[in-house]
């Protein structure tokens, strides 16, 4: 018994060591660096004061982008997964199922390059609107700012959340849906009042994973939008590359961990609440 437990620890050790050396240790180091005075090394909040002074707009901007993108991703995913579960037009179901997954495994940097050309003033989007007569050539504007970042994130993350949701919806008990429909509820009402409450936890997990992913992306804000305001990932890279200022960069890092921690807390509170409600 003791022997097999020792063997188990031995088998896990190399993988665990890799994560500890390349993640846990740098994480601890970044927190320590964020809270220490750059000249004396003593505990101090001076880096956070400086980070707030220089980057308060970017902190708010980052939060706005990831919250808005997560919300829009959730809405788009519910629409797609909901139609895949309850739609009645066979050719539309086939078309949608074939279409929606395309961006799923496209790397962020490729998505950024796609959008950098697609959303430009003279990009395919505006050109199509002009050709279709929706816009006049003089009315076209570039979307390469916060809107572009938002669009890229929603475009890239929706297939992932929709895939999870469609899976969860497919495994629901069809009887609850049929019952609501037989009682005369419209498909939209059935979706909102019967289906979504039952897939709530899956929607939550998908949204939280998207939220954290978007918070970590460097390429999209750099390539899709201009420099001011920008997301915290870009500020961290700039702080290091331009000034070698690890203390303020790590303070910004800790601020982004806090955003992650808040979402993790919301998730844990919800899943604990659910367990308490369970019979």
């Amino acid at each position: 018994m003791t022997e097999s437990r020792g063997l188990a620890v031995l088998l896990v050790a190399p993988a665990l060591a890799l994560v500890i050396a390349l993640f846990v240790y740098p994480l601890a180091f970044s927190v320590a660096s964020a809270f220490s005075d750059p000249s004396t090394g003593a505990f101090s909040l001076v880096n956070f004061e400086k980070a707030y002074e220089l980057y308060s707009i970017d902190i708010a901007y980052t939060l706005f982008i990831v919250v808005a993108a997560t919300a829009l991703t959730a809405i788009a995913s519910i629409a797609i997964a909901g139609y895949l579960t309850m739609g009645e037009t066979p050719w539309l179901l086939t078309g949608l199922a074939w279409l929606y997954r395309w961006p799923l495994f496209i790397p962020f940097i490729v998505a950024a390059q796609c959008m950098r050309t697609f959303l430009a003033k003279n990009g395919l989007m505006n050109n199509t609107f002009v050709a279709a007569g929706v816009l006049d050539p003089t009315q076209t504007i570039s979307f390469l700012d916060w809107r572009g970042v938002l669009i890229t994130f929603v475009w890239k993350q929706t297939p992932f959340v929709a895939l999870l949701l469609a899976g969860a919806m497919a495994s629901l008990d069809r009887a609850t849906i049929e019952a609501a429909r037989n009682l005369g509820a419209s498909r939209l009402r059935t979706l909102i009042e019967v289906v979504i409450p039952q897939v709530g936890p899956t929607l939550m997990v998908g949204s939280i994973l998207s939220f954290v992913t978007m918070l970590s992306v460097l390429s999209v804000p750099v390539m899709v939008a201009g420099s001011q305001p920008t997301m915290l990932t870009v500020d961290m890279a700039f702080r290091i590359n331009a000034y070698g200022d690890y203390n303020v960069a790590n303070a910004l890092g800790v601020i982004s961990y806090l955003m992650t921690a808040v979402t993790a807390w919301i998730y844990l509170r919800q899943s604990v609440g659910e367990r308490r409600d369970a019979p």
Partner: protein
Amino acid sequence: MIRALSGSVTRAVLLIVLAFVIIGPIANLVLWSFAERWYFPYKLPVSYGVRFWEIVFRPTGVAMQSLATSVLIALLTVAVALIVSIPAGYALARLKLPLRGLIMIIFLLPQAFPGVAIYINVAKFFYQLGIAGTVTGVVIVHASHALVYSVWITSAAFASIDRDLEHAARNMGASPLHTFFTVTLPLAAPGIIASAIFVFLESLDEFTGTFFVGVPTVNTLPLLLYSASMGGNYQIASITALILLVPSILFMLFVERFLKADVLSKVGR
């Protein structure tokens, strides 16, 4: 009748709009890769050609070197990840392990934290160790980040194997190690291959970690795409992006064949 028809038209328009939103950006990438000249106010490229493809695919070209570096790093990352994940996945699936839940979560953490703040510090340590800007440095960063896929999926693959088959081999006198290599490992192979594909793609597409740890000497395809795009060379950037798209889209089309439902249902448990 007319209502049904207008309903169909509405649905068709919706599907076309959705197709434009999803395929449009990718189509723009393809257009750029074949555009020899494209400037305002022309809605489509002024002249088409494969000149930039020739530049990218020239054997001595920078793109081919980046592709070779990317593939080398991805293969080494798969090797490192599998070497540590197969024993770990087996232990997590089959053996009694203290704090098993916590260990599973630790592998998830690198994916669940904003990476840039981690990478800047890793780059600093690597610089002190003398492995900044080396393939070795990039490979271990990629491997640590991808372990969640390899450990969780190999563990699920081992967990989905019928234990009776192993017991049968043991009863017939096979040693535990012999049983593992002739019965358990071959049965878990589809799941392990699936995890290897995940790790390979994760490494191939990785940008942020390589950006901090690999510069200036390790130049992968995502880094080439980034510098070409920021330098305004949209043709090279678009062709590089298309090269990166091929494995991603192939994987999307075939993922369900690699990852069977019995394994999928055990991932993360």
